[in-house]
């Protein structure tokens, strides 16, 4: 299945066509947004990891919600359902073990996305 292949590393997690479209194909602008992403995502991951460790459900919910917007720009569609499930579980303030599992996936996929974007950025100089 596509998702499994993506998670196991056989295809890219990012699809940059949306970003390119909204930036009108302008390379300097695309690179600018990539730079914001590369700065923001590690900060957000750190915050969400801390919140999950403390089982701070309201913050997990809010951060997962914010990250949905961030990753949508980079076309990381595989993260949509994962983040939504984190939002839903955190909203009910339950099943921290499940949230931890989802958070692990989130971290793994974000690390791959960061790597892909760092590589792709060279094409947009």
């Amino acid at each position, binding site marked *: 299945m596509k998702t499994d292949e993506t998670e196991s590393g056989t295809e890219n997690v990012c699809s940059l066509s949306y970003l390119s479209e909204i930036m009108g194909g*302008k390379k300097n602008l695309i690179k600018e*947004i990539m730079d914001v992403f590369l700065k923001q995502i590690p900060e957000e991951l750190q915050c969400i990891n801390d919140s999950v460790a403390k089982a701070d459900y309201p*913050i997990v919910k*809010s951060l997962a919600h*914010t990250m*949905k*917007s*961030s990753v949508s*720009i980079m076309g990381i569609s595989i993260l949509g359902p994962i983040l939504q499930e984190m939002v839903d579980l955190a909203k009910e303030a339950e099943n921290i073990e499940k949230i931890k599992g989802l958070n692990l996936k989130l971290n793994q996929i974000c690390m791959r996305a960061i790597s892909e974007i760092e590589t792709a950025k060279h094409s947009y100089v």
Partner: protein
Amino acid sequence: METEFFKSMSPEEKIIFIVEDSEVYAKSLQTFIQNRFLDVKEIKTFRIGEMCLMELHHNPCIVIMDYFLNSKYKAADNGLEIIKRIKTQRPFTNIIVLSAQEEVEVALETVKQTDCYYIRKDKNAFNKVEHLISQIFNRNNFPAIESLN
């Protein structure tokens, strides 16, 4: 259901505020609007609604905001509270609420309560924002709520 009512843009200067706690999304939207509307004087972005309220004296003609704000700021007000406060201070400000699909009902309730516009945060959101801004700038009539079908 679509409700139609009329807006007119009063200021000569086109100033847009974006209130969005995802910096990537905010910067993307800001850049997108800058590219599409070259005569816009200024587009400011804010991570929390309170910061936007402090700058309302700049008289933005449009405020675009995510309904669910405040990811990292527990004490900050939510989107609805911020919208109400903007409308109290600047009743003629055009407010565009961006919201994810799963929040449609609550966002539509906000639209009804506060006389603002709603756009679902999906792949067409930026184009819909462009369309709406264009209509506001051209003082055309337009629906308050996008078609949900």
